[in-house]
């Protein structure tokens, strides 16, 4: 599998996905 960080837009999409994941993690850590 190709590393998404090799492409600029793969990097940006990875950043967006990570932002969504961490947003929901933070929300759950704060009690929903």
């Amino acid at each position: 599998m190709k590393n998404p960080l090799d492409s600029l837009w793969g990097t940006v999409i990875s950043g967006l996905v990570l932002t969504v994941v961490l947003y929901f993690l933070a929300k759950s850590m704060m009690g929903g």
Partner: protein
Amino acid sequence: MGDFIVYGLGRWLHILAGVMWIGLLYYFNFVQVDAMKAAAADQPPTGAGITKHVAPRALFFFRWAAVVTVLAGAMILGERIDDALLFKERAYVPIGIGAWLGLIMFFNVWVLIWPNQKKILGIVPATDEEKAKARRVAFLASRTNVMLSMPMLFMMVASGGIFRRALFG
């Protein structure tokens, strides 16, 4: 007066230095990487000026802006730094996540990017094989920082007042 300096000037400095750090990170990734590729494909190659005059200056402000950003951030958190980094208090969770992402990025700058860039730019001696490896490590660490900058900035802007209430209730 103490609060004025810590929260007013400290936050201002944190953002000024942070803009310089992340701005140069985006310059490297959105502009310089592809520019160097195109310059290397020219006949004869035209990238020497960037390597000699632009990259070292950009890297100087990049790595020292990272230091100022982290120190100013630590100053703003002050004695609440453990509430943030250890997620001890609900209100400090977003800034805690943002701070951890910033610290990982700071580690990448000083431990992975800068030592390898010194080899790539010829500031320290390296064989062609070592340079090729250094280029890959520095590139991936830099791209990792672009990826991490997105949730980091989200958590930073979501960490206070009306913004935190709007996003996290």
